[in-house]
Structure formats: structure tokens, C-alpha cells
């Protein structure tokens, strides 16, 4: 069992950073090493890490986190339109705006706990979604989605690079001139995810994080212990909303447009699935969960019957048709079926998510190696 000493945390951090930055290498055998998907891994990883800070530590299940994702995206696109194509103000404003939204939504929703809290956050997210389609069309550009245009002001760009020729099309998003698409875009997102992971680790290990776990464990005892639970939960909610805003603005950085569907409840549900699949309350779990879901979404949905026939070509024709017919249900348009089955299996057999599976395996492994029964009563989710 790994205990959370500063040294182990440092090792974990180094391991995590290396694993993320080398993803283009070790993910290529399973066909996942193309920049678009890698960017998604990193972005949704950030989203899930932040979500887990709220859900994993305090136990408050927000069903409206996609609202912050959307707010982050819209803000980033507006920053591209009005200020500059540089990603720094876009990300900065994305995080700040979604943080402000989180203060308002959190302040109201956190008056209730349990299912009522979830419903309140869901209501706010659906409200944002519908407003983005209707009343707020001047800001969100409704169904078309908010896009960049040639005639956008881009005040700062025009101020400093005023000599830029017109008629060359919309300039790309950039970080000090480096174009933020493809691999540079991935590395930008990956570095931010590593920073986000580090911050979430610090929070989890801090007295503040301990108080958040206390909120989950027993709020009654907490208030009779002289602790005010409200500011703790609100702080967790806002931090988590800011992570979502960061993820949202990165979606806009890698692909500068924002649509309201980003705020729909299915997007909120997705991050819940990611967190539970990976392991609620663990550090690594949400990242793994996000990776698995995005992988399934992109890879499994790309399989079609022809590809399957090729895979099973070693079988006799009759058998081949049967197998393809069955397996075909689980890929292509049916990839949700695979995901659903995987989710059911994980929740039933590994309530602690994939991380519990990993820590069980490592326990079996280390027991075999040590051969001596160690008395360990404290079960901690592996990290």
C-alpha cells in the first residue's frame, strides 16, 4: 500500500508528468496517438480532476458542471475575438469567468445537500444551456455557435502587430507565436493538466482538503467541532468550477468555436461517469476515467463492419458473419453499449473504479512478493 508521504507524492508527480508527456509514444500501439484525441485526453482530464475535487472530497455530486465548461469556452472565444489570438488571456478569462459563475451557482445550490443539490446544479446548467440558445443569442450566437470572424476587433493584436496584412484569413490561436493546434496544442493542454494535477494533490493533502473529507464524512460532527461547513463547500465548488472553466477554454484554444451543446446535461453526466469509472476520490482515477471514455468515444465509434470483418478474417466465413454481427453491436454507433457494459462491470465489481482494480492487483502482487502477512487495516484508495 502506498502511503502519502511527501517523497511518494513527488515520485507520483514525476511519474504522472512523464506518463502524460510521453502519451504520443506509448498510446500509438492502440491507435490513440493523434493530436486531436490527445488534446481531448488532457482537456477532459482537467475537467475530471476538478470535478473530483468537489465530488471526491466533499461528496457533493454536481450535475451541472458542463455549464462551467461552456462558460469557459464562450469566454475564451470572446477573448480571441475582442482582445487577442493569444491563448493566455483566453485561458485566464475563461477560468475567472467560470469561477464567478461558480460563486453564484454554488452559493445558491449549496444551501441544500444530497439529491437536492444535484437537482439544483442540473437546473442551473440546463438554464444556461437554454439561455444560450434563446435570450443570450447576441453573446452565444445561438445554434450556429460562437465563431471567429475576419472582422473581429482583436484589440491587442492590432495594437502591437498592426502591420498584419488583411485578407490572410483568420489568424490561428497561438502562444507567443506558436500555433495551438496539433502537437503544440496537446503539449500546452498537457502542461496545464500536470499543473492542475499538482494543485489537486496539494489540496487533497492539505488541512483544507482534510476538512473537505470531513464534510463528506459527517457534517453534523463538523459543525459541533467548530468548523463552518458552508465556506469549505463553496470554496471546493468554485475551485472545481474553475477547473471546468479551464477545460472549456482549452477546448476553444484547440478549436476556436463554442456551442451551447457543450453545456447540455449529457456533458455534465459524462464527467460524472469519468470520475466514477476511474475512481472517486483518488488522484489518478479521474484522469484515467476521462482517458478511457474519450478513447472509447473516438476509437470504438470509428470501427465499422468492414473493419471487423478484417479483424476476424481468420475465422471461417459463416462464423465470421456471426461474430461480426454480435461484436458490431458494440462498436460504431453502438459504442455507448460497450461503455455502458464497462461502467456496469466497474460499478458492480469495483466500486472504487479502475484505481481500486489497480490497487487490488498491486496488493496481490506485493503479497506474493513479501510472502509475509502484513497487518494492514487502513484501506486507502490507491493513488
Amino acid at each position: 500500500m502506498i502511503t502519502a508521504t511527501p517523497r511518494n507524492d513527488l515520485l507520483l508527480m514525476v511519474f504522472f508528468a512523464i506518463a502524460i508527456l510521453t502519451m504520443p509514444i506509448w498510446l500509438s500501439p492502440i491507435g490513440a496517438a493523434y493530436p486531436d484525441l490527445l488534446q481531448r485526453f488532457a482537456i477532459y482530464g482537467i475537467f475530471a480532476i476538478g470535478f473530483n475535487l468537489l465530488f471526491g472530497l466533499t461528496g457533493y455530486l454536481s450535475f451541472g458542471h458542463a455549464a462551467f465548461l461552456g462558460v469557459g469556452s464562450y469566454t475564451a472565444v470572446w477573448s480571441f475575438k475582442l482582445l487577442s489570438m493569444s491563448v493566455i488571456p483566453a485561458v485566464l478569462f475563461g477560468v475567472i469567468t467560470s469561477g464567478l459563475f461558480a460563486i453564484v451557482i454554488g452559493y445558491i445550490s449549496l444551501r441544500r445537500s444530497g439529491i437536492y443539490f444535484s437537482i439544483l446544479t442540473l437546473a442551473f446548467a440546463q438554464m444556461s444551456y437554454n439561455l444560450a440558445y434563446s435570450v443570450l443569442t447576441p453573446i452565444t450566437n445561438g445554434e450556429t455557435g460562437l465563431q471567429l470572424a475576419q472582422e473581429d476587433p482583436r484589440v491587442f493584436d492590432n495594437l502591437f502587430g498592426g502591420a498584419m496584412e488583411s485578407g490572410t484569413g483568420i489568424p490561428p490561436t497561438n502562444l507567443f507565436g506558436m500555433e495551438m493546434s496539433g502537437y503544440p496544442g496537446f503539449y500546452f493542454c498537457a502542461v496545464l493538466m500536470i499543473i492542475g494535477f499538482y494543485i489537486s494533490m496539494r489540496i487533497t493533502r492539505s488541512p483544507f482538503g482534510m476538512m473537505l473529507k470531513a464534510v463528506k464524512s459527517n457534517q453534523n460532527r463538523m459543525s459541533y467541532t467548530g468548523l463552518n461547513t458552508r465556506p469549505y463547500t463553496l470554496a471546493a465548488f468554485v475551485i472545481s468550477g474553475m477547473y471546468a472553466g479551464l477545460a472549456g477554454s482549452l477546448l476553444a484554444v484547440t478549436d476556436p468555436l463554442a456551442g451551447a451543446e457543450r453545456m447540455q446535461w449529457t456533458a455534465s453526466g459524462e464527467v460524472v461517469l469519468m470520475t466514477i469509472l476511474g475512481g472517486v476520490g483518488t488522484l489518478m482515477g479521474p484522469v484515467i476515467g476521462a482517458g478511457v471514455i474519450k478513447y472509447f468515444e473516438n476509437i470504438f465509434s470509428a470501427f465499422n463492419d468492414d473493419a471487423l470483418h478484417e479483424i476476424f478474417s481468420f475465422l471461417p466465413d459463416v462464423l465470421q458473419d456471426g461474430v461480426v454481427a454480435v461484436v458490431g453491436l458494440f462498436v460504431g454507433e453502438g459504442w455507448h453499449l460497450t461503455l455502458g457494459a464497462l461502467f456496469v462491470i466497474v460499478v458492480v465489481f469495483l466500486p472504487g473504479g479502475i484505481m481500486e482494480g489497480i490497487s487490488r492487483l498491486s496488493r496481490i502482487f506485493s503479497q506474493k512478493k513479501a510472502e509475509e502477512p502484513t497487518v494492514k487495516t487502513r484501506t486507502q484508495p490507491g493513488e
Partner: protein
Amino acid sequence: MGILEVRDVNKSFGGLQALNNVQLNVEEGSVHAIIGPNGAGKSTFLNCLVGRLTPDTGSVTFNGGSLLGITPHEINQAGVARVFQTPEIFGDLSLLDNVIIPTFATRDGAFTLNAWKRADQDKEVREKAEHMLEDVGLIEKKDFIAGSLSRGDKRRLELAMCLVQNPKLLLLDEPTAGMSRADTNNTIDLLKRIGKRGITKIIIEHDMHVVFSLANKVSVMAQGTVIAEGLPEDIKGDPRVQEAYLGGAHL
């Protein structure tokens, strides 16, 4: 002038007068027991002291300040700790964390955004918490998950969580309810030991054995009011008390 003064407290729920002009004066450093038959209003009274309920009328003064209209965490920060009838602990945290949390609460106040330091590297807090666990005899189990403890151990842990805060007043709501004889005696010993620290205690209790081995003053409640008050040996023989206990039972 006592550390806790309760004057004319009334509380009714609909038509039921749960508390009727309750008066109580608790001396600093004393162990004050409140006894009475079921439904006498003991728990309602205790809830009025810790901010869970607000009395309709009357005053509750603790250490010179009013306890009315402030929240439970503010009451705790003022120096009142409470042990519940069923132990309220952080069931899925380790014993050590259970005691570290109140230690932080006392040192750093009701809210601190202390998100960058490591909780386990805070020597001062950690040592204090470990000392406390040693005092109540749970140090060997400090890495256990609190929810896995026996009821007696949970009670000890809850006491440790309250004591580590160094409260001025400790409220104990039936600290031995549902315990075996052995656990009860252990708890009595523990309470006697911590009695030496001079913490003022209010104990609500059914078990006369517990009351007479701990308390140095006893108030008897019946039908929402204090009907008798005095030294334990005087209360034992008081006919009003026997009347309240036996007469109310319709044997």
C-alpha cells in the same frame, strides 16, 4: 456566578410545552448531572444549549456571553464541546485524522483556506492529536478507519475529539447509553481521569450508577422543568425525585 447560567428557558413544540421555565446554574469546574425520566425535556434542553434549537424565551449565558442566536460552530468556538448519544465521528477517516480535525479547528478557527501546506507535516497539531489518542488509550489504532471501531471505542474517540479542543464546558448526552457494563465502567474511569483537568461537565444520564460515581451536583428534570437540585446524596433520598421517576411510570 457560574460558567453557564440558564434563566427562564421555555420551549414548546406546537401545543407541547417541552421546557417550562428551566433554571440552571453550573459552577466552573463542577460535574453537573441532569437526570429525569423519559420525556422530561433533557435532550431538548441540551439542544437549546448547543444551538440546534432556539428557546422561545429565556437566556443562556456562557462565560459572560449569550449562546442564543448563534450557530453550533460558533458555540463550539466559544468553548463548548458536545458528546452525542450515538457517537458522531468521521466514520471513513482514520482515528488520527478524526482527532487532527478538531485540533485544526481550535487552532485555526471556523474556516481557513489552508490549501497549500501538508496536513501530515504539521508537527504541532499531529503531536497534540497523538497525545490525546494516547490519553484515551487508542494510540495503537490510530491508523484504523474510525467507522470500524466498537461502540465503546467510538465513544472514546469522540471524547478525545472533544477534549483535544480543550473546551471550557463539555456536554455529555448519555455517554454510556447502550454500552456493556465493562464499557460503562471504562468510560466512567476515563471521565474521572479527565475530570482532574478541571473541565466543567454537564452529563445527561439515565444510569444512576454513572451519575453517582461522577457528579458532584445533580439536577432532576420532570415535565420540562427542574424539580430538584442538590448534592447527589441529597437527591437520592428526595421524595419528589422518587415521585417523578416512579409516579410517572404508571407501574
